[in-house]
């Protein structure tokens, strides 16, 4: 894993030179529009009195009709021994159905407000070439999810909500931040100085919950033109979950990035000067014969030290 971070240049320059700035930031811009747009829809009420959505990402009511409830919060409430009203359960079912359709981790890359914070830390890390320190196991978040549910059960409270940076930040922007800025800053500094992509990629139990919902989503990133890969390693550098790329990019099987941890952020598509990656669907397995032919050559030729080693 550590060799993934041996990239010593700031990624993206070649993509910008080849494709132009706009195309090299297409998915990033779309995500920022989505993240900020959702935040704005929530904020229109408290800021301007235009009540399209009430509540927070935790549980909300849109146009006084549509209830939406975050499944991670429902899980904690279940563990704490409370069966919520039907309204919250229906809201939770709608959210679960939506993320089963689009892919669970879409929440992380396209909705979650913390993503902007951790993306900023990751960008600064690359910009100033901060060397990676030890990150915990990416599986820690699943253990943490289990521990949180156990703590919720034992304490009878929503245990993660004492410190959850995601809900503290989102709620803070709508209702008043209090001391939540300190926790958000803590996550930012952790990602900047301690562990690359430490929060979203290793720790966040909310993301872990959405990973578990990331099994049936229709849109998928695919290394469709993987034969054209020139081993520049830039996709690994920008990916929030770099371990998900290799099986699709360098494996012999489907080029679709099928890991449940892929957030569908599309940054690999932006950053690749060779246009290896595309957003496709999970059913799009086809590769054309020409590429399949060159694939083997690249595999043979590319066996040297430039290849990422895991």
């Amino acid at each position: 894993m550590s060799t993934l971070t041996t990239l010593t240049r700031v990624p993206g320059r070649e993509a910008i030179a080849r494709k132009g700035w706009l195309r090299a930031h297409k998915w990033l811009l779309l995500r920022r529009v989505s993240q900020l747009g959702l935040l704005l829809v929530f904020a229109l009420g408290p800021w301007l009195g235009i009540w399209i959505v009430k509540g927070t990402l935790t549980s909300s009511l849109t146009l006084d009709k549509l209830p939406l409830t975050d499944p991670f919060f429902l899980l904690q409430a279940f563990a704490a021994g409370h069966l919520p009203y039907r309204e919250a359960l229906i809201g939770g079912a709608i959210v679960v159905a939506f993320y089963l359709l689009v892919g669970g981790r879409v929440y992380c890359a396209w909705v979650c407000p913390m993503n902007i914070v951790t993306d900023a830390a990751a960008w600064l890390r690359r910009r100033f070439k901060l060397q990676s320190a030890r990150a915990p196991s990416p599986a820690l978040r699943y253990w943490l999810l289990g521990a949180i549910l156990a703590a919720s059960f034992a304490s009878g409270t929503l245990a993660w909500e004492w410190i959850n940076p995601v809900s503290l930040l989102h709620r803070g922007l709508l209702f008043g931040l209090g001391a939540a800025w300190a926790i958000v800053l803590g996550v930012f500094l952790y990602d900047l100085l301690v562990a690359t992509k430490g929060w979203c990629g290793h720790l966040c139990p909310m993301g872990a919950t959405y990973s578990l919902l990331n099994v049936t989503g229709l849109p998928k990133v695919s290394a469709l033109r993987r034969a054209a890969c020139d081993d520049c390693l830039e996709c690994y550098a920008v990916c929030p979950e770099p371990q998900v790329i290799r099986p699709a990019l360098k494996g012999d099987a489907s080029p679709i990035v099928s890991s449940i941890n892929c957030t569908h952020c599309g940054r690999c598509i932006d950053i690749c000067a060779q246009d290896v990656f595309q957003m496709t669907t999970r059913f799009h397995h086809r590769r054309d014969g020409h590429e399949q032919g060159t694939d083997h050559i690249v595999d043979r030729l590319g066996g040297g030290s430039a290849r990422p080693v895991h």
Partner: protein
Amino acid sequence: MSDPGTLPSDADAQRQANAARRRFLVQVSAAGGAALIGLGLGVHARQAAALPAFAVRPPGALHEAEFLGACVRCGLCVRACPYDTLKLSALGDGVAPGTPYFEPRKVACEMCPDIPCVKACPTGALDHALEDIAAARMGLAVLIDHETCLNYNGLRCDVCYRVCPLIDKAITLDMQRNARTGMHAMFLPVVHSDACTGCGKCERACVLESAAIKVLPIEQAKGELGHHYRLGWEEKARAGRSLLPQDVLELPVRRPGGGS
């Protein structure tokens, strides 16, 4: 590279075993770390689960221990409150972060007849079974300081009594002789827990620098009789007659000087 003297397969097996051991140790430490965080959260939750005395939950709120397991911290009740009485706790406010509360000394509950905050709750942390706001028990007003209360000093302040939405039910004035002057009356405000909703109007309106009457969580405000206690006059009223057989009880007659 493998040692020339060793068979490559042995070296491979060794490397695989090492890798497996490393993976196992990483998982164990991840599990241990997660367990520690979970333990810390659980302990913290137990310590921090009590509501501070200045804060009162919205009407219909479950008992605090259950409330913290039912409220998803969404803020819909706060948005439904037409008087901006309710607010969501921010980190550092002393109330569980993200949960709704109000501070009666700053803003009291207006006791809306349609109780919009309760209707807005999607989880049941605010119990929809509450349909009559007069049945709400957000807390209980307690005239906590007799030394500074103006009425206890023989003045006719009466403000807490006058502002009470359930005047003469939740707060009454009890006339007593003023022993200090020997010639005046005192009108002592008395709170009745069978009517007080804990709306906080009295605490909000108390004219003192710091209120002499305060809304407290009910479990802190109320005593509890021993469950085996029977109050003789109540038993008597229920039975319609004295339950003591006549002439059974003979009390000794004590006289000064030890004689009887």
